[in-house]
């Protein structure tokens, strides 16, 4: 049962990653690309981690997976802000 759940979620995550990458290639300027990357990929990552949670064999691994996602979210958000501000030309 858990496997089916994982397969569905990981394939959904894959879909989001593809969307993010297409966005990165197709969009004209930096800011819109940033949108595609941060939003789509992070969502994809979230789905991926949810899928993997089904496979987790204990609370500790579950905790680590969640921690990974949280950290990735914070990092992506901060980085996107900085890149955007630099792209705008004023100092961060």
């Amino acid at each position, binding site marked *: 049962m858990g496997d089916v759940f994982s397969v569905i979620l990981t394939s959904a995550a894959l879909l989001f990653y593809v969307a993010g990458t297409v966005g990165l290639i197709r969009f004209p300027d930096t800011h819109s690309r940033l949108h595609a990357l941060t939003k789509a990929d992070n969502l994809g990552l979230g789905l991926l981690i949810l899928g993997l949670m089904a496979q987790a064999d204990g609370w500790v691994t579950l905790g680590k997976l969640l921690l990974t996602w949280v950290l990735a979210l914070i*990092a992506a958000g*901060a980085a996107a802000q900085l890149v955007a*501000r630099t792209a705008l030309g004023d*100092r*961060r």
Partner: protein
Amino acid sequence: MTLAFDLVLCAMIVGAAICAAVAGTIFAAAVFFIVYGIFVSLAWLRLDAFDVALAEAAMGAGLTGILLLRALGRMPASEDRPGPALAPALAGAGLALALGWAFLALPESAGLGPVVRNAAPGAGAENPVTAVLLAFRAWDTLLETIVLLAALLGVWALSRDEAWGLPPGLPQRVRPDGVLAGFGRILPPIGAVVGVYLVWAGTSRPGGAFQGGTVLAAVALLVSMAGLAQAPRVTSGALRLVLVAGPLVFLGMAFIGAVLSLWQPGAAFLALPEAHAKSLILGIELMLTLSIAVTLAALVAGPPEDRA
């Protein structure tokens, strides 16, 4: 099934390496290098070498990547036409073919795996890699921390005389309430916990002084980049004491072993007494981690520079 994964992984690694080598601009090359580093650490996972995967991701991809990007920021965008390509291509291809043939011609595995595995518990660390690093080949590890110190001394010696005495690296100008400052406040505590955990876990599970040290170095770099704390001056005694604490403790312990060996047959240079080897190894590892973290942070920050 796993063969397919490996083939794809290897293709990705080689592709990233080629892009890093021949990318048009240096910035693209640096970015591809970081991607390449991540893929290589994946390859280490495939080889069940978790310690190495950690090290490769943290140092190979992470720190080296930051080094390249930081240096790129200070460089003019100069068009660079590489030299003649024939001789290098022949050399590279020849070497690759020779190594490939050698890999296939190697005899069946003659490694020291089993020997290490059953000697490791006696040496005070269940994780065989940490046992090798801190017990069997402790001399290598000691020299290695000295290499780090030598590199740092070299980097500091490259500063200009007027800038001597300032803290390492370029002074950062950060908007006090900006995103970086916020980011700089959130991440360090988590990073510190992860770093220390890595060191502590090193004795039994993958981890160790170098991997933990690298994480702590990243935390230190982030804090100084976010302008939250001013790095100590290059000539400050405290900074220098922390820099040499690890090798000093390690060398001191080793030397005490040598002196003890005069009348105690069991003791020897670099030997840890059997009874409390585990706690000694942990102690040494913590001190090493402290020194490694500060040294790596200072290495990446670079020589002290004045306002220019």
